[in-house]
């Protein structure tokens, strides 16, 4: 199963992706977490120390370092995974697609989007779960190009701007033929808020995640919420989301 996680910046994509990956791994699944943001920080939400998040080499950067050019054939996705994957807590494998490091280094940016598309598209996922944390906004969802077999999580918090981006993400996912679109209403203050988001997004599956000081606290410290308080209300909701994802398959 492949899951693409999309939404506005700050909606909680990485928090959701990180917790989901860890919970699924704890439940015995093989989990590959893809950080598709050219400003990568999924490693933080997965519980890796900041130092190793800054030193890990994303696929595209590592290929370019080794003299790879546009005209060279890209190695198969599984080969890339074994070369550039990093082990995160609970046995999750983290791999980043590309990182922007300076203002004008060739065409890294469209390159990182391209790498995301190719890697997300080709990585075999028959007996494992691939969770891709996309770049903020809608652009990366188009690049990742999830298909009918894939799942899209549209993450939003309560602000009107965030809901609007998630609504558009749902429509794009429909346009791409994605059959399972789950809205994740994050940082909700009440059940009524979840209903409002559900109404605005117009998808059948909606999961509410409550506002949770434990998550905010972990976020401010640069730690994975699951390592700070795995039983807090938001994390309990994300564990349920993890179960729900795999239960249907």
């Amino acid at each position, binding site marked *: 199963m492949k899951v693409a996680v999309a939404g506005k910046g700050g909606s909680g994509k990485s928090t959701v992706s990180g917790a989901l990956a860890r919970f699924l791994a704890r439940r015995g699944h093989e989990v590959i977490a893809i950080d598709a943001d050219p400003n990568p920080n999924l490693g933080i939400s997965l519980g890796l120390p900041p130092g190793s998040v800054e030193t890990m080499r994303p696929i595209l950067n590592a290929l370019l370092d080794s003299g790879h050019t546009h005209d060279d054939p890209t190695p198969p996705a599984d080969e890339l995974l074994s070369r550039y994957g990093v082990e995160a807590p609970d046995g999750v494998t983290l791999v980043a697609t590309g990182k922007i490091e300076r203002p004008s280094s060739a065409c890294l940016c469209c390159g990182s989007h391209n790498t995301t598309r190719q890697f997300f598209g080709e990585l075999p996922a028959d007996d494992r779960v691939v969770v891709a944390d996309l770049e903020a906004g809608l652009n990366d969802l188009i690049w990742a190009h999830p298909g009918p077999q894939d799942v899209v999580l549209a993450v939003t918090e309560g602000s009107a701007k965030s809901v609007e*981006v998630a609504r558009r993400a749902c429509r794009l996912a429909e346009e791409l033929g994605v059959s399972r679109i789950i809205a994740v209403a994050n940082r909700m203050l009440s059940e009524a808020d979840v209903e409002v988001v559900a109404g605005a997004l117009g998808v059948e599956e909606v999961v509410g995640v409550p506002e949770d000081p434990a998550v905010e606290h972990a976020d401010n410290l640069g730690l994975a919420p699951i390592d700070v308080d795995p039983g807090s209300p938001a994390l309990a909701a994300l564990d349920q989301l993890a179960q729900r994802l795999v239960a249907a398959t």
Partner: protein
Amino acid sequence: MRWLAVERQATTYLRHLASWAQTRVLRDRLSTIAGHRTALEAHGTRAGVELEAFDEEVRRRAVADLGVRVAIMGKGGAGKTMICATLARQLARRGRKVLAVDLDTNPGLSMSLGVGPSAPGLGPEALEEHAGASYGWRLAEGLTALEAVERHSTVGPDGVRFLAVGKICSVDKTEAKRSVPAMTEVLLGFGAPDVDVVVDLEAGLTTPFERYHSFADTVVVVVGPAWKSALTARRLLPMVGERDTIVVANRVGDEPHHPGLAPRVRVPFDPCVVHAEREGRAPMDACPTSPATRAVDTLGDVLLTKEETA
């Protein structure tokens, strides 16, 4: 003020040229670039000489009236759009002419500014296909930056002019992006000396990579309380190049500021603004005198004072 504008325009173009000259793409056109550089330097020098001739008091007042050029960056969710919209309206309430530009292909600034969702933006009639342009489109030949702003912007609350790029609403990879290079042309070429230009950029590191902030004299980096927000700010700062940078800490409580990111302006956590954002209302309409919107007004002070002492 005209000579101030000429001087600034020359400096902006030179800065842009210098950053382009570092790219692989343009190495073969270095001689053309050298030609442009010489011409621009001549303009700059001429402007400098003219400015010298003015009385110091006249010059000081002209500098104070000169519009600011501000790019707002940061991690997604840090509060870029809220700061941008509120800054634009606060500057306008001081009686200044303000152009607020949304350079993000995701929706947002129109809501925080209070101009309504249907503002048209830089539409197809302002663009033309061009093989050499990124995404294959550029500003239509013969359309100047000033004309583009006059024809395609809308006037919002407090008289703020608003201009946006296209928004992503289909799976076509480039459709919404078409207007982005054109908008950067508009921003670089917008010479109106007395208009403040504040621009909301897309989240993350893509925008400095693409040099979308080339037009700006000042870059405002917005950082929220989250550790990852600080990480993004630390990655952004070395990428914005030689220009003034102002760190604005947003949604702060009583926690210490992030190490190495001393904020010039602290915008407090403000329930009224949170509420306005939930409802999709402009903070300046919902809470014009609450702590956060007043703090953003002090960012205006910082920007304008800097101009006077420049």
